[in-house]
């Protein structure tokens, strides 16, 4: 989950740039469908990458010695709610992961339930959209196993991850973090719901108790504080309708680049 706190800070300090904001390419982009043309490259990129990647190509896995000595905490460092504070207090004993939407058998799982399922450990690189990278070791349940156990309805197309953190405080709750991936990535062997990082329980700063790892995409897809997985056929009814918190703020839904 890649926070763009620096970006927001800069926007704040660059208030004088608001005049410039009305000119230049932004105006161009909002004009005469040029924005749509510029955005069409995203579809092309996704199709080209999927063609080259196939379904199964794996992200590189590194050695223990490659792990970053310090893994930057990004985005929300701790969800700011009474409910979350109580869960931390109770060591997440009362925490449940809800899986619902277009599934045959909706489920609620505790952290202990998840830890009983087959686990996968992978040492992978986390790439922030801003440009930095950190390598960490993740342990968790392959998402495909969970989706297999709840059974997807034929109309299922995307897995949406609802999170416990609000990255932006708004009255309507639209600042709540969420993310989504399609079923190709959902069933990819390296796509896991991680409950451990570098051999220890996931820290609050890194998304305790559960975060998504979808290794062939950028950091903002790696939703932290996941509490509900909703299977949908479109993003239309969800917040901004673009399939994610940063997607609703202009970033690409397909974050393989």
């Amino acid at each position, binding site marked *: 989950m890649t926070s*763009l706190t*620096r*970006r927001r800070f*800069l*926007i704040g300090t*660059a208030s*004088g*740039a*608001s*005049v*410039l*904001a009305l*000119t*230049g*390419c*932004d105006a161009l*982009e909002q004009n005469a469908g040029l924005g749509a*043309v*510029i*955005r*069409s*490259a*995203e579809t*092309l*990129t996704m199709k080209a*990458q999927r063609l*080259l*990647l196939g379904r199964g*190509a*794996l*992200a*590189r896995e*590194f050695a223990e010695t*490659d792990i*970053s*000595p*310090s*893994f*930057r905490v990004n985005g929300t460092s701790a969800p700011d709610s009474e409910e979350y504070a109580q869960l931390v207090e109770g060591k997440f004993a009362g925490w449940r992961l809800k899986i619902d939407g277009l599934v045959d058998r909706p489920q609620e799982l505790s952290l202990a339930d998840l830890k009983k399922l087959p686990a996968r450990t992978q040492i992978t*690189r986390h*790439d*922030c*959209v*801003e*440009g*930095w*990278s*950190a*390598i960490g070791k993740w342990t968790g349940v392959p998402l495909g196993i969970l989706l297999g156990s709840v059974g997807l309805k034929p109309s299922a197309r995307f897995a949406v991850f609802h999170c416990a953190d609000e990255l932006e405080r708004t009255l309507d709750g639209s600042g709540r973090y969420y993310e989504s991936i399609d079923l190709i990535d959902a069933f990819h062997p390296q796509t896991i719901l991680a409950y451990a990082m570098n051999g220890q329980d996931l820290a609050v700063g890194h998304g305790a108790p559960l975060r998504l790892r979808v*290794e*062939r*995409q*950028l950091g903002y897809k790696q939703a932290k504080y996941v509490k509900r997985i909703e299977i949908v056929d479109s993003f239309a009814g969800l917040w901004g309708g673009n399939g994610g918190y*940063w997607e609703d*703020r*202009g*970033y*690409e839904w397909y974050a*393989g*680049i």
Partner: protein
Amino acid sequence: MTEELRNSPLTPRWRTILIRRHSVVTRLTHWLNVLCLGVLLLSGLQIFNAYPQLHWGQYGADADPAFLKIGASESNGEPHGFITIGSSVTVSTTGVLGLSKTGGEWTTRAFPAWLTLPPYQDLAAGRRWHFFFAWIFVVNGLVYLGYGFLSHHFRRDLVPQRSELVPRHLWREIVDHARLRFPKGEKARRYNALQKLTYIAVIAALLPLMVLTGLTMSPGVDAAFPVLLDIFGGRQSARTLHFITASLLVAFVAVHVAMVVLSGPWNTMRSMITGRYAIRQEGPDA
């Protein structure tokens, strides 16, 4: 294929002829490339501004040693911009790098507003422009490469002859360039050896390096072609090399444009627009 223009009757032993210098494919791909590289540079600096540090290796973030860092800090209550290279060299760059004026207000940003696209900080928009023009740049480059090989443009115009690569010959060309003495007459029909070597370096090394180091920053492409990580030594090394290669391209363009201006801007510009290039030729009045 040459059109002859009768020169002044007072100088019957010289005539100016217009030769066909650049094919239509070369001209179109050249100008499309100018547009692409311009947008890619400015949107690239916008992207750089989101994380204005460069690292070497597979990983790199704030806590890790930086190869290059542009930032702002405060000393004696006064903010100032700086660039740090390695761990020791720091240069004050207030006004341009790290700290610059945006619409009259001091702003902490690595590259100033007038060097980024869009001018205000917007990583998402910068990425959209960058990737759209990256696609056009790649397709345009492939068209040019395909044409260059099929039409023998590369073999005929860009591959230097053995005699041109002799050190003494190269040295003479360097001295001539330094004195701003450019080839005339028959010699001006062809690129000189320095031009050929420079263009080959740009076409065969710098531009492909830009594409490959750019692709290595993509987690998707890395999964498809992990060998890229071995070639460039990691995603962060690739990001650093992307920046260095872009800097070399900027240096090339600066020299390239300077040479156009110094060697006769009208003639060289005409040759890249209409294709026709005038050379003065010695010989009997035709």
